[in-house]
């Protein structure tokens, strides 16, 4: 389940959007014990100025991203805007039965987008 982007375009400034991954939807609910799903989220939005500058409390802006946004503002044909990508991620754990009837707990890094940034 994903948060619809307003207006069908890129949806305003670069930020994290809700994306919930349901293991039932993926057909894994018979072997995944917990969780039933998780909020993976995704990044989308414009990285023009001022979005290319980080918001309050967000990750520090990359100089290069600011440079590109400035170049684009001055001469749009001189290369595109920076990209809206994950800037801070966090892990999840999964509890499941494997094919040897063991109960397995696995820890996976970088599965949830907590913050987005322009790069």
């Amino acid at each position, binding site marked *: 389940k994903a948060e619809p982007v307003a207006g069908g375009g890129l949806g305003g400034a670069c930020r994290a959007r809700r994306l919930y991954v349901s293991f039932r939807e993926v057909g*894994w609910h018979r072997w995944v014990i*917990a969780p039933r799903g998780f909020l993976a989220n995704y990044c989308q939005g414009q990285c023009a100025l001022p979005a290319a500058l980080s918001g309050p409390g967000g990750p520090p802006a990359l100089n290069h991203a600011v440079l590109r946004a400035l170049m684009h503002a001055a001469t749009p044909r001189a290369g595109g805007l920076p990209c809206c990508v994950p800037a801070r991620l966090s892990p999840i*754990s999964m509890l499941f039965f*494997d094919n040897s009837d*063991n109960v*397995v707990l*696995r*820890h*996976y890094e970088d599965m949830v987008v907590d913050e987005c940034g322009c790069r």
Partner: protein
Amino acid sequence: PVPPGPAAALLQALGLRDAPQGAPTLRPVPPVMWRLFRRRDPQETRSGLRRTPPGATLQPCHVEELGVAGNIVRHIPDRGAAARPPEPASAAAQCPEWAVVFDLSAVEPAERPSRARLELRFAAAAAAAAPASGWELSVARAGEAAGPDPGAVLLRQAVPALESPVRAELLGAAWAPNASVPRSLRLALALRPRAPAACARLAEASLLLVTLDPRLCHPLARPRR
């Protein structure tokens, strides 16, 4: 067969060779596994949705509760339980030995073991009639022959009481700490009372195995200066 398309790619990204078919026999999830899961993902379980408290960074690839490095914890049941004959009531001198078998074939060669904890639960009756001086547990390597045979004794351990599960650390005893995990582990267990008393009866044996898969492990990113 591995499902085609994005599901296969996601499985591969999760380090799973194939899509598990679900537990062949529905069995309860051991409390220790729930506890370890909730320790790592408390928000998920309670609310069904994940929220990371700002600034909270769990040490990646480390199992705090067990105090070892690792990103995979497996609770492996004893395969020998079904084949074990019912035990005759016997005097202390003939306390039975139990053959336990753990199938470790699911562990990948790249995984490095950091903890292998044998957990034994005994029937309550023996716990109630425990000798004052307690018991002695011996763990030996069982041969390929059917049934336990003494083999090399890997460890001996004093057991004061049987009310709570008896735990014994096998890493370093059953195989060298830096060796890769064997595909199968066959053990012969014996629990002898130190003073004349009735024999105990083994109710359940399991192995808690913690491994570290370095391929799924990123060093903690250094905060930007």
